[in-house]
């Protein structure tokens, strides 16, 4: 079971879109999970960003069952202490992940806004982080969703799907 969990007002339509699309890439059921924790505990006031590792820890506390996976979807700007920002974070070979649309908006880069593109980027980021949860590491294929993207530019080059190599690892590792 994969749960999609809205955290602190994600962009409208994102949770629904991602829940609908995820079965294309992952077997099993997808449901929405309403989080109970206050996301502000992850807010770093000096950086004005949210610590994604704290969000992961909170999601882990709310895990409905040992086998469940949760992907948190948010609009807040995420970071891990050593990096200036992250698009998302996942527990490798674990249960929880989080993805943010904050830096996936065109306007963040001084470009004309494109709502469909933000949704597509966020979906790719969610699939990527969930791939980590299902034990996948980065892939060399620039069209594979598991390719490491340090920017939206690379994100736009990849598909929202696993390449055949990653897909076969995913199938054998997790189902």
């Amino acid at each position, binding site marked *: 079971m994969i749960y999609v969990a809205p955290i602190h007002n994600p962009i409208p339509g994102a949770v629904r879109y991602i829940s609908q699309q995820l079965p294309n890439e992952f077997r099993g059921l997808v449901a929405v999970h309403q989080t109970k924790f206050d996301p502000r505990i992850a807010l770093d006031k000096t950086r004005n960003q949210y610590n994604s590792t704290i969000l992961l820890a909170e999601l882990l506390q709310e*895990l409905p069952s040992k086998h469940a996976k949760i992907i948190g979807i948010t609009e807040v700007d995420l970071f891990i202490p050593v*990096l200036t920002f992250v698009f998302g974070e996942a527990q490798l070979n674990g249960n929880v992940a989080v993805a943010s649309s904050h830096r996936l908006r065109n306007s963040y880069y*001084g470009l004309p806004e494109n709502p469909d593109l933000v949704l597509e980027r966020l979906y790719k980021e969610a699939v990527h982080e969930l791939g980590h949860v299902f034990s996948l590491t980065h892939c060399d294929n620039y069209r594979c969703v598991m390719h*490491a993207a340090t*920017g939206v530019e690379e994100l736009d080059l990849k598909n929202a799907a696993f390449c055949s190599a990653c897909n076969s690892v995913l199938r054998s590792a997790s189902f």
Partner: protein
Amino acid sequence: MGRHRIRPFEVNIRRRDGHGWAIQMPAPQDRTEVRGLKNHTAAILVVDDEAAVRESLCSWFQKDGYTADTAADAVEALKKLSKRAWDIILLDIKMPNISGMELLRRIRQIDPDIVSIMITAYASVDTAVEALKGGAFDYVVKPIDPDDLSRIVRKAIEQRKLKKENLSLRTKIEDMVPEEELIGDSPQIKKIQEIIETVSQTDVSVLIRGDSGTGKELIARLIHAKSTRRYSPLVAVNCGALPESLLESELFGHEKGSFTGAQYKHRGKLEISNGGTLFLDEVGTIDAKTQVDLLRVLDSKQFTRLGGNQVISVDFRVICATNQDLEQLVKEGKFREDFYYRINVFPINLPPLRDRSGDIRLFAQHFLERYAIQIRKKVLRLSPEALSLIMKHDWPGNVRELKNAIERAVVVAGGPEIRPEDLPFDMNKISKPRGESSIAEVERAHILDMLGRTGWNITRTAQILGIDRVTLYNKIKKYGLSK
């Protein structure tokens, strides 16, 4: 669940004085079990007294497919150094007891080939110089920009001369090949197939010419997929679809702030296509200034982002495409001659669909099979009447128009056969026998007819015709059409 073991999900969060949060996420139960499709030989050790820093860096490297581990201080680091060979060490300059600089000195005594990257909390020239003098390869300032970190690690790996092994085995070749293929057994298509084979083995600039919808981008993708550059991206830019100011930014990228209000740098397509192929569609629409700038990049392989001064080196192959008469544009002074010669080293001409009627049937059959599978509908064949209409049609929108027509027909078909009425327009009406009217006349009439049907909805008409909106606007202008 098979071999996939689930570990208990405790988590330990504690507040540390002055350091915000430190979270101890449970580490993967068995690091060797973590699968990856990247076969790096590099092993990376992260040494930092701050748990949050070393754990998050370690996890970051593991997700990138590296073997990674952590040490909380110099003593632990030295212990781990004695147990196995490490390729790269990231170490915090400021640590209690034995400092990072002192540890660096000891590491260099143990193995001078280990690539050391220092982590510092402040960008100060002094510490940087001191670290580099002490034999460090480079240094990073906390917090690190993810892009900088991956670049430094890539550089470090090059330094160690660690090759990414078995890349071609792990990145399957079939994954790199476009989903579409070149269809047709006409002599023209056979010739083009030969040309693709030849030109893909070289690095020369290719100019693909042909009407809208003849499949110019597909040819570019096939050349790229057969070239040694296939594991790096093919980056397509439709130059005609972007206003001048945006095209420049799209190609060259821009720095944060400056004129755009960007909160973060935006990397252009030139940068993203590094190692791969840059495909410039509708190259004839590029303005003179951008032509000059592009020419400079093609010659020097270097450029700067807009609003920046850092020189960025790139290595890509350029493939251009156009449906315009570039020679005429050069004569009229609308296209630079030097740029024209630079991009037109190897021209490929794609004939319009109507000139290779033998391929029309193959295309129709191919698209029919594909869409029938896609929408899980048992549409098996074209009725003789429908096929005859398709063969007679002039296809001003070329392959794209044919593709759209078949796709729609498969959707609306009521039985196993596509009948004339399933086709998206009354072909009898617009396809006069050839010879009676010029192609331009047929095209004009067809476009006008479609515009009438859609109530002059440009987007829809362009979709039906299988051409982009810019091309449709140009044709409306060319034929002087109005409501």
